């Protein structure tokens, strides 16, 4: 694989998918829609992840982990302010069953189990959206915010962001060995 990025436009059922050569994408991940989907290097897409680009494009950064049954991309027609689609930064972990429709998710965020992020929401860097938490449409969450419990928020000044990013990197390495990858299927 000489070129780092290879864009190939597929017929109608498959969305235009571009990815770095060293990503891990499971065979039975589901990619639907018509807008382009791009995944950065080192990212892991688990089986049964649903990437839906019917309404807007999806951009996933490097070293991200997108878990099973999570739904990325707009699930309904976008509102006026969300034209660039869903942008997920580097080192983001989206856990099982989370629904991400956000406009932007910053670097090193963790979206926990069954959390929901509404359309047009902007989430800063190194945030954590706790399990089952919801972020409303168009909400803007600053850097280092932790959303937990019943919509409670606090700003975390722990200063261990680098450590966490490194941990995500190690997790990706383990997952590379565990998940059989088949990027060719989607191209």
């Amino acid at each position, binding site marked *: 694989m000489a070129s780092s990025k290879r864009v190939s436009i597929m017929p109608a059922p498959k969305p235009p998918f571009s990815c770095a050569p060293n990503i891990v994408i499971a065979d039975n991940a589901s990619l639907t829609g018509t807008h382009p989907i791009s995944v950065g290097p080192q990212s892991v897409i688990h089986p049964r992840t649903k990437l839906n680009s019917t309404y807007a494009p999806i951009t996933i950064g490097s070293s991200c982990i997108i878990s099973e049954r999570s739904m990325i991309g707009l699930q309904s027609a976008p509102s006026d302010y969300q034209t660039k689609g869903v942008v997920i930064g580097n080192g983001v972990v989206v856990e099982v069953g989370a629904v991400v429709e956000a406009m932007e998710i910053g670097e090193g965020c963790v979206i926990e189990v069954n959390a929901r992020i509404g359309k047009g929401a902007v989430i800063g860097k190194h945030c*954590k959206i*706790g399990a089952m938490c919801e972020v409303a449409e168009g909400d803007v969450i600053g850097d280092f915010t*932790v959303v*937990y*419990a019943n919509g*409670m928020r*606090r*700003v*975390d*000044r*722990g*200063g*261990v962001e680098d*450590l966490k990013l*490194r941990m995500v990197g190690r997790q990706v390495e383990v997952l590379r060995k565990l998940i059989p990858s088949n990027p060719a299927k989607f191209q």
Partner: protein
Amino acid sequence: MAEFKPYTYFQCPCTDTSFSTRRRIGDSGPSSEEETDEDERTFDPRAPRANYSLYPLEHLLYCEDCHQIRCPRCVLDEIVCWYCPNCLFEVPSSSVKSEGNRCTRSCFQCPICTAPLSISSTESPPEGLGAEYVAQSGPYVLNCAYCLWSSKEIGIQLEKPNSIYAQLAKIKNGGEPYISPKERRRIREERKGDGEESQGSEMTLDPNEKLDAESQFANLKAFYQEQLAESSPASALGFTGDYGYGSPGALSRIMGLYTGSSFGDKKSKSRSSMMREAQSALEGLQISSPSASEESIARLRASGWEGTCSTAQRLAQAHNPRFVSDLRPIAHLLRTKRSKRCKTCRHILSKPESKVQNTRFRIRLVAPNYVPRIAIRPLQPGPAAPQALLLTPLRPTQFVLTFSNPLFDDVRVSIATPAKTPGRFGSRVTILCPQFEVGANTDVWDEALREGGAGAGKGGEREKRRTKAEASEGQQQAEAGKVWERGRNWVSVVVEVVPAVLKVGEEEKKDEKEEEEEQEEEEGGGSRYAGPLREDEDILEIPVFVRVEWEADVAQDEGAGLAAANNKDNKEEKEKRELAYWCVLGVGRIARD
């Protein structure tokens, strides 16, 4: 409106509230003569005191010796052991007394979100081959996995990953060490010595010296103990260090209280005047500085909403902090395992295994094993819409009550209700079959085999109404005096209810037209018809008196060991048992017009 679920509450006979309450509230039955007759009294589930005697069946115990239901109010609790819910270590009662009811090992809760904290090293984990075998080192912090709080935020780092409680007790927020009690005592002694030598007045009033809460308390305590000891070895109050109620001073004071004479009053007065108050920081005096509140306001301004504790967070802390930076990790509260005894016969009703990890019970006499369970469901399955589930006033509605027998003997059940439910809005209630027999809770296989075996024996004799009902798809009519359905160890009967009208004004008029009794009732308590509909007054609650009779094996009963010994030769002897109690059936909500 929230969906209404039918419920059954059982009244524990330990509190016979019906008589006194009803007379007090004025929610009495038709006539006062009836009240005197014990059998005629109806239990009023709406009486304010009824709340304290009604329990779901699962909350009740059963005393095998008294043959009676026991509720949480008529059992005695005994603590079997204390344990930490986090580390599941048993804490001896002596250390609970000396160190309080919190885990003194390493179990802490997050002060922000109450999730358990875990300890981790601030150093990045070692990498490379065999990294997992390398022991982590360096300063440790407490981390909350849920809200990502870490003790770094309050400036606390620990040296060891274990015995955190002891380590935390030595560190203030910010990392400064606390003065240990021993150290504090030493300093106090030293300072006192200096003060006596110099006799300087600057020592006595030292408002600038700031003490932390613990030091201040220790100083104050030491000071007052000293004062008490000086004023008299056994002072009037008798608080010589310990709460010495047994001291002569305290005794004389108590005697004085009872006899009215001034037993030791003069002495105590003269002595108490000798006591002085704390005068210096050494003695625990802290002068509140006028700028303190300004300081906290300034701090509030600087830290903002984010830096301020919520009420819940403040309440969880011992020192009532205002700011997030003053919070401290909360040690886990200990829990107890308790055994329960019957209050009347002192027999143990429930005893858990004393080992903390073991969730089994050694003894557990729970009421569901002795008392028939009652389930309610409407006879006609209604539409699913919540509005339609409401009971229409004045339209007869039928409910099926299913009694299931947990005992291994056949039981005879008789049930009774007042014709009209007590309270402001009396609904008419009719039980179509008030007496019936419920089969024993025998082995399911026994029954199946018996039925297979040519229908001989008890199973064959029984009415097979159940199959009949199934065949006609529930179209049959409920007949008076007959059981609706019957199974192995259960019987269902039909109750017909005519819900009352919930209009306050109309109720009065309607009642007047009705029976004379009710007119009397109105005269008796006219005030209770006034006022709007109270909370949950639209729920139709039916008080039901249940009497269960059965014949039990005497030999089976442990309590009747003596009797069993006497009747050793004829083991077949049966004993008649009876259990009678009130239940409340919450049937449904009555629709408002």
